[in-house]
């Protein structure tokens, strides 16, 4: 009942906001779009974009503190646009309000002949990378952007990958070859040129050293490069460079069927396993209008929390390792292994089960699952306490991480920081608590926070989150609802088979749904969850076919990496490593 009341208050809040905007902007608003997940969506021309966003950020109620995402949709082949203003490329701005606990979407129509739009870096510094990515993928020019270079694709790439005319498969292109001169050309393109980033090569007193940290470096957690400007060992400035782990996951979404895309989501945040399935299947279910049974929700929550513990354990261990403590990672891998064994006995796979389904999960829980989960609840808590002694209470580790890489809540808003990084600044905001999904409203758990927002606090928050996850798993174990493991809905995939041998209509539907995949009605939906590393959302556009028209994956790590220069200036190289470790990212999650 509580949740319903909250939904109503959210709706009345957003209708009050919409009235205010209608009053202030009048006919400068092109259209209002109805959405199935209830996020108010306004269309506005590009000349009024800045004014509207500024109003939303500063003078409206509620205020939208955070720029959550910027992306675009290539609308040229879209058939079902449902009365939206004419547009060939739509730029989508997604804002989040923490004070008002709601979202807002602004869309700007653009024509292929004139793909220009003003930059909004002046409002939110986080827009920098989002705009670069949108330019990279769609060729939309953000006027006034200081460094509109390629971000995710290689600097030598031809074309813009998410435009519909760009090939999606290797077989649509020439066979790949890398001649010596081509390799040399690529190498040269990767050379870091400080002048491009407005950096000086020397100050009045000293000459700077430019150090390439990565793409292959022991502690950048994958293929990630930071070009750092050093004065001795002091960091003057840094330029993070991503894209080395880019696999085109969003493009793949446009060619896979709704169902066959699920395993790809597993590999976005590859430490999160089925956690990644959740926002995706929730968004599809939202568009299809599927209500999943309580048992499905609880099973999902249980597995998601197990993966949260796994991911946090890996973070915890590597964090200690990057500060020079060699052993904890090995102890934590033991635990992680045991959790994976439990996950394997439920899902049949360990790191990437791809186990959630549209409208349910793949199978029912196996016999005897209770004992195994109970085992987990027994062995974990004493081990976590032991790690406190080993890592968090260690004097050297404290001296290395306290006061290093600190930021406050306002900075976190500006840079789009979510998850433990946001809670470490003292803001008690957890998606699971503040906007419960998948039945989280039925669970009792606390939202751990810290106050300093430094490396140590980010770690401490995650450690406490593991304890809370265990609490949630305990409640799943004690109150697992009975019932079905998939929804009774025609679009549930794979569909129910019981009646197929009795009536021809069901048989046809079943056959089509299994061979082609389900056809999701034309719609748009954003679904977000509290992922392992922050808020992870899927923005799906369906054009009434068997695959997605546009799949936008907003990952927390992308925003977090962008903040590295801001929080590491003036620290030493060793601190930079601690900062990187405390962010908890995987490059697959950043590059997608």
């Amino acid at each position: 009942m509580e949740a319903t009341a909250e939904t109503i208050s959210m709706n009345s809040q957003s209708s009050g906001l919409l009235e205010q905007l209608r009053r202030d902007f009048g006919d400068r608003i092109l259209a209002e779009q109805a959405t199935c997940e209830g996020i108010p969506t306004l269309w506005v021309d590009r000349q009024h974009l800045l004014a509207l966003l500024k109003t939303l950020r500063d003078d409206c109620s509620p205020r939208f503190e955070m720029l959550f995402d910027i992306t675009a949709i290539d609308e040229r082949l879209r058939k079902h646009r449902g009365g939206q203003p004419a547009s060939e490329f739509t730029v989508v701005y997604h804002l989040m309000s923490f004070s008002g606990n709601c979202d807002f979407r602004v869309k700007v129509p653009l024509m292929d002949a004139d793909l220009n739009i003003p930059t909004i870096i002046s409002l939110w510094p986080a827009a920098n990378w989002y705009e670069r990515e949108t330019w990279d993928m769609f060729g939309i020019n953000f006027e006034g952007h200081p460094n509109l270079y390629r971000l995710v694709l290689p600097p030598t790439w031809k074309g813009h990958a998410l435009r519909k005319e760009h090939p999606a498969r290797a077989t649509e292109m020439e066979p790949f070859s890398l001649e010596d001169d081509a390799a040399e050309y690529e190498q040269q393109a990767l050379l870091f040129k400080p002048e491009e980033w407005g950096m000086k090569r020397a100050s009045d007193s000293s000459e700077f050293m430019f150090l390439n940290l990565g793409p292959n470096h022991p502690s950048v957690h994958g293929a990630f490069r930071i070009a750092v400007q050093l004065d001795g060992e002091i960091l003057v400035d840094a330029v993070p460079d991503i894209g080395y782990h880019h696999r085109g996951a969003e493009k793949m979404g446009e060619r896979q069927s709704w169902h066959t895309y699920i395993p790809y989501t597993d590999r976005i945040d590859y430490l999160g396993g089925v956690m990644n399935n959740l926002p995706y299947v929730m968004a599809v279910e939202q568009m299809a209008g599927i209500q999943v049974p309580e048992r499905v929700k609880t099973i999902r929550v249980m597995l998601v929390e197990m993966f949260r513990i796994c991911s946090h354990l890996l973070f915890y261990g590597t964090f200690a390792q990057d500060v020079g403590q060699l052993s904890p990672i090995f102890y934590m891998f033991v635990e992680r292994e045991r959790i994976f064994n439990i996950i394997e006995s439920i899902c049949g796979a360990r790191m990437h089960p791809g186990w959630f389904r549209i409208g349910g999960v793949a199978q029912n829980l196996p016999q005897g699952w209770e004992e195994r989960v109970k085992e987990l609840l027994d062995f974990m808590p004493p081990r976590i306490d032991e790690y406190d002694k080993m890592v968090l209470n260690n004097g050297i580790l404290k001296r290395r991480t306290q006061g290093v890489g600190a930021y406050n809540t306002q900075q976190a808003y500006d840079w789009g920081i979510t998850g433990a990084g946001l809670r470490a600044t003292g803001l008690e905001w957890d998606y699971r608590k503040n906007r419960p999904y998948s039945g989280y409203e039925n669970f009792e758990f606390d939202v751990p926070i810290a106050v300093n927002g430094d490396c140590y606090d980010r770690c401490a928050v995650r450690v406490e989150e593991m304890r809370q996850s265990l609490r949630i798993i305990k409640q799943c174990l004690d109150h697992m609802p009975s019932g079905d493991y998939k929804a009774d809905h025609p679009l549930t995939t794979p569909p129910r088979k019981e009646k197929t041998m009795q009536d021809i209509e069901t048989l046809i539907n079943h056959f089509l749904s299994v061979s082609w995949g389900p056809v999701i009605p034309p719609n748009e939906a954003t679904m977000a969850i509290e992922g392992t590393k922050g808020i992870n959302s899927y923005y799906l556009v369906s054009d009434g076919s068997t695959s997605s028209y546009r799949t936008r994956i907003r990952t927390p790590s992308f925003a977090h990496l962008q903040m590295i220069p801001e929080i590491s200036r003036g620290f030493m190289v060793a601190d930079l490593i601690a900062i990187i470790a405390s962010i908890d990212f995987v490059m697959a999650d950043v590059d997608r």
Partner: protein
Amino acid sequence: MELEIGSALSIGLILGVVIITAALLITVERRLLGFWQERLGPNRVGWFGSLQVVADMIKIFTKEDWVPPFADKFSFVIAPGIIMTVVLLSFAVIPFAPNIGVIDSNIGVLFVLAMASLGAYSVMLGGLSSDNKYALLGSLRAAAQMVSYEVFMGISLLGVVALTGSFNMREIVESQADGWYIIPQFIGFVIFLIAGVAESHRLPFDIPEAEQEICAGYHTEYSGMKFGMFFVAEYIGLVLISSLITVLFFGGWLGPAFLPPVIWFAIKVFVFIAFFILMRAAVPRPRYDQLMSYGWLFLLPLSLVNLLVTGVIILSTQ
């Protein structure tokens, strides 16, 4: 031929045992770390992985001996040789047993300190000649760390020297017959231990080669046997520091008569080696500037006070 100080047999024995011990330590360390870290460690080659070191040696000897084209060839090549030479030379003055040793020198302690200072050149030259930014950072850190920790490493020993009244290591050992210097010189021992770890740059003070920060530090560009020499020299350095601690603070070869003196020496040395390995498994790495300020602002005054107090006590009891 009888074992006596300075005989060819004695010298050959010491050289062989030290190098073999250092090489074996590679396996021992990995096994011990594995044991402490709830994993197996290398256990496939030979009995409980004992031949792992042979496999490693074959690999490292047959690797391409590559000198980067951008490096300064001369210093790049001699750098690993220097560290190897100075740590091995240091063993000349270590008294392993009453009848085993290379020379019986009256300036034993000073000789070891002098050799340790020369070791800094190896690390600096190696890093500078590589023409690699990580190596440069590593050698800068190494130079600063080794030079500053040498200062109080030396001062921390002076208490022992004052108590004995000699720089001769054999005399130091013999004067401990009534009681090891660990008791009167406990502070000196702790400072020497810390400085020793810093001197042999092992975790937690492996800042010059901090893998997570600057890849491999000063030996980033080294491969094959040149890297092998840095690697083995680190382990020989570990044996050296453990031997020095044994000699200076734990009575060297002295021990109950049911075991020969050299065995007592070996046991004590191994305990310290194991302690150093355990430290590597347990302690995080401080930051470079923290290490420096800890040394200059805390350890240096402490070692001076220790020396002063020792001096006062010696004078007042005379």
